[in-house]
C-alpha cells in the first residue's frame, strides 16, 4: 500500500449539505481546502433525500381542504419561524430541554440570510421544495447547484476516499488518515483545521431507510480521538416505514392519505385511540373521527404526535399484537383523491407498486433515518468541538435537518477559517508518525486478510443492526441494553479481529464502517443505560416518565483510558425552560 501525504489549510470530511457549505465558506476565504468523500460527491448523502429546506406557504387548495400542518413559513413573521426552528427545526431528538438552545438560536438568527444566499449558489427555488417534485429527490435541487458552485470557486474534492481516523497530536487535531478506494493508496492529510461533516448513523438499525453509507463514521472517529459527544441516547425513530415483504423498506411519506390512516394491530383494533387516551395526549378539540387527519383526530400537530405514534406501534409489536414485527396502517376508508392530492401521496403509490391499499391494510413498522436526534459530536455556536482544530456541522453534531446542516455548515466552516489564519502548517512528531504507521499496518492487515466465516463485514453489519434494533430500538430497558452491550462486545472480541477485505478496497471501506458501527452502537446503548428516564426519543420501559428534577442534564461521552466514560453537564437553557413554554415543551 503506497502512502501519500498532502497538506491543506482546511480539510472537510463529508460532502452533504454541511460539508459542501463549510467548503464554500473556506474557499470564499481563499484558503487551500480539500473536501473528502468516501463515496461520490453529494449523491450518497442524506441531504440528497432531504425533504427540502423550508416550507413556503403551501398550495391554496391544501389550505382550503384543511390539510395543512403548522410549520416553518418564511412568509410568516420572523418571530414565528425563529420559534419554530429552535423548537422543531433543529429536530433535536424530540427533546427541547437537552437540546443546545444556544446553538439553535445563534444559527436561527441567520436562517433567512442563509436561505437567501442559496440563490447566489444557483439554487433556483429555495422555498418551494417541500411541495414540488417527487420526494426522495427534493434535496438534490439544492445540493447539485451547490456542488457546482463550490467547484467553480476552486474547491478541490476527492471522491472515494475514506477517512478512518483523525490525527490527534497532543491537544490538537491536525489532520486525518484514510485510504483511496480507487487507487488503493494510504492517505495522510495534514490540516490546520478539520471540519467533520460525516452525517449521522441511521444505518445502525435494522429498520432504517437512511442511505446505505450513513454508518456514523464521524461519531466513531471523534470518539477515538477523545472528542466529547453529547446525549448519544437521544436517537430517534421518526417515522413508520413500509414493512410489506416485496416492497422497499422505506418511509411512507406524510401524505394526506397517510395522515388520514388508522393504525391497527393484528386483531384489527385501532390501538392508537386507546393509547392516546391512556397517555393523556389528546389535544383540545380532538375529534377522534377516522375521517379526519391524525392531527385533527387527536388535536395536536402531526410533528408532536410522531413520538407517540412510534411508541404505540412498538408497544403493540412487543406485546405480541403485531404481525412479523409490524402493525397495520389501514387506508381502506380513505377517499382515493387524498392519495392523489400531492406528490407525497403519489410517491407512496409508486413505492407501493400496485399494492391494493383500498382492499387491505399495509404493514408498517417504526423506522429510523438517523435524523430526529439529539446526540452527536458536541459543538458550540461556532462549530467548535472541545478539541481545538476539530469543527463539526450537520447531522454529526447534535441536531438534524437540512436547514440545521446548512447553518451549522456555515458556522463550522467559518470557525475553521478563523483558526487557520493564525496557525502555521502542522507537522507530525515522531510519536504520531509511529501511530500513523501502526494504523497503516492495521489497515493493510485487514485488506490482505483472507475470507472467513466470522469476519464478513456485511454479515457483521447485519448482526449489529439486528442487535441495535432489538436492544437499542424504540423502547429500551436495562436488561435489554445490558444484553445489547454484551452482544456488541462479543462481536468486537470474536469477529472484528477476523474482519477481512480479501484484497478489495471497497470491502475495506465496508470493514471500517462495521468497526465504526460497533463503537457507535455501544455508545448509544451505554448512554441509554445511563439516563434513567424517558425523554424525547429515548423511551425506556423501566423509567417511562420524564424526570426534570434529576435528569435535566446533558450526558457527555468521552474516551478515557480506553473506556467509555460518561459524565453530566448542566443543560444550557437560554430561552425555553421547563414550565415556561406555554405550548408544552418536550
Amino acid at each position, binding site marked *: 500500500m503506497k502512502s501519500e501525504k498532502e497538506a491543506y489549510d482546511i480539510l472537510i470530511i463529508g460532502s452533504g449539505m454541511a460539508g459542501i457549505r463549510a467548503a464554500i465558506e473556506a474557499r470564499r476565504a481563499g484558503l487551500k481546502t480539500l473536501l473528502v468523500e468516501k463515496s461520490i460527491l453529494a449523491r450518497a448523502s442524506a441531504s440528497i*433525500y432531504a425533504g427540502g429546506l423550508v416550507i413556503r406557504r403551501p398550495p391554496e387548495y391544501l389550505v382550503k381542504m384543511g390539510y395543512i400542518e403548522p410549520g416553518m413559513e418564511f412568509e410568516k413573521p420572523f418571530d414565528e419561524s425563529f420559534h419554530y426552528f429552535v423548537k422543531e427545526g433543529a429536530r433535536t431528538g424530540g427533546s427541547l430541554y437537552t437540546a443546545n438552545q444556544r446553538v439553535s438560536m445563534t444559527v436561527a438568527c441567520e436562517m433567512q440570510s442563509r436561505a437567501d444566499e442559496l440563490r447566489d449558489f444557483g439554487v433556483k427555488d429555495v422555498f418551494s421544495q417541500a411541495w414540488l417534485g417527487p420526494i426522495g429527490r427534493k434535496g438534490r435541487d439544492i445540493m447539485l447547484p451547490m456542488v457546482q458552485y463550490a467547484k467553480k470557486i476552486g474547491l478541490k474534492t476527492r471522491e472515494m476516499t475514506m477517512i478512518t481516523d483523525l490525527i490527534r497530536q497532543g491537544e490538537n487535531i491536525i489532520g486525518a488518515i484514510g485510504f483511496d478506494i*480507487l487507487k488503493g493508496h494510504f492517505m495522510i492529510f495534514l490540516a490546520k483545521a478539520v471540519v467533520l461533516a460525516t452525517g449521522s448513523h441511521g444505518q445502525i438499525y435494522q429498520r432504517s431507510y437512511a442511505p446505505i453509507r450513513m454508518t456514523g463514521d464521524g461519531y466513531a472517529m471523534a470518539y477515538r480521538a477523545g472528542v466529547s459527544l453529547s446525549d448519544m441516547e437521544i436517537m430517534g425513530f421518526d417515522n413508520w416505514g413500509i414493512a410489506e415483504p416485496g416492497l422497499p423498506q422505506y418511509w411512507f411519506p406524510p401524505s394526506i392519505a397517510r395522515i388520514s390512516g388508522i393504525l391497527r394491530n393484528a386483531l384489527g383494533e385501532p390501538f392508537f385511540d386507546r393509547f392516546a387516551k391512556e397517555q393523556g395526549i389528546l389535544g383540545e378539540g380532538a375529534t377522534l373521527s377516522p375521517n379526519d387527519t391524525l392531527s385533527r383526530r387527536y388535536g395536536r400537530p402531526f410533528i408532536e404526535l410522531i413520538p407517540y405514534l412510534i411508541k404505540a406501534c412498538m408497544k403493540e409489536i412487543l406485546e405480541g399484537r403485531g404481525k412479523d414485527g409490524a402493525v397495520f396502517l389501514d387506508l381502506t376508508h380513505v377517499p382515493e383523491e387524498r392519495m392523489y392530492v400531492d406528490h407525497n401521496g*403519489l410517491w407512496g403509490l409508486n413505492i407501493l407498486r400496485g399494492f391494493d391499499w383500498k382492499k387491505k391494510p399495509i404493514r408498517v413498522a417504526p423506522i429510523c433515518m438517523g435524523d430526529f436526534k439529539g446526540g452527536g459530536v458536541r459543538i458550540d455556536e461556532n462549530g467548535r468541538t472541545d478539541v481545538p482544530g476539530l469543527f463539526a456541522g450537520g447531522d454529526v453534531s447534535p441536531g438534524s435537518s437540512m436547514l440545521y446542516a446548512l447553518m451549522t455548515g456555515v458556522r463550522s466552516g467559518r470557525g475553521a477559517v478563523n483558526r487557520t489564519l493564525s496557525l502555521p502548517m502542522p507537522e507530525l512528531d515522531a510519536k504520531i508518525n509511529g501511530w500513523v504507521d501502526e494504523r497503516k499496518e492495521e489497515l493493510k492487515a485487514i485488506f490482505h486478510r483472507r475470507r472467513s466465516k466470522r469476519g464478513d463485514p456485511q454479515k457483521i453489519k447485519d448482526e449489529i443492526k439486528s442487535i441495535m434494533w432489538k436492544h437499542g430500538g424504540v423502547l429500551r430497558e436495562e436488561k435489554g441494553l445490558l444484553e445489547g452491550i454484551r452482544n456488541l462486545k462479543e462481536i468486537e472480541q470474536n469477529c472484528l479481529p477476523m474482519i477481512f477485505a480479501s484484497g478489495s478496497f471497497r470491502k475495506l471501506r465496508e470493514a471500517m464502517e462495521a468497526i465504526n458501527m460497533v463503537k457507535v452502537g455501544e455508545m448509544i446503548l451505554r448512554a441509554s443505560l445511563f439516563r434513567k428516564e424517558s425523554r424525547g426519543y429515548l423511551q425506556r420501559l423501566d423509567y417511562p416518565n420524564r424526570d426534570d428534577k434529576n435528569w435535566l442534564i446533558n450526558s457527555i461521552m468521552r474516551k478515557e483510558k480506553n473506556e467509555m466514560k460518561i459524565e453530566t453537564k448542566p443543560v444550557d437553557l437560554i430561552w425555553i425552560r421547563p414550565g415556561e413554554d406555554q405550548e408544552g415543551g418536550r
Partner: protein
Amino acid sequence: MKWKLGKATFEFIKDKCSCGLGRCVEACGQGVFDFLEKPQKIKVVNLTQCILCRQCEEVCPKKAISIQGALTMQDIRMGK
C-alpha cells in the same frame, strides 16, 4: 434487462455498462446494486428496495440505466 416496478419500468442495459467505477452503486442509497470486482461489473441484486429516485440513472456516464413510467401528477390529471 427490464423489470416492472408497479407502473414504472427499470431497465439495465448490460452492454452499455462499461465505466468500471460503479457510480450507480455509490449513488444508490438503497443498496440495489452490487459492484463485482473480478471481473469488474455491476449487478442488480436488490431491486425490491428501489424507490425510483433515479439517482443511478443520473450519475451513469454511459446511459446504461433508465427508469421510466413512474406515476406523475400529470398521469393523475389525465385520469390514468
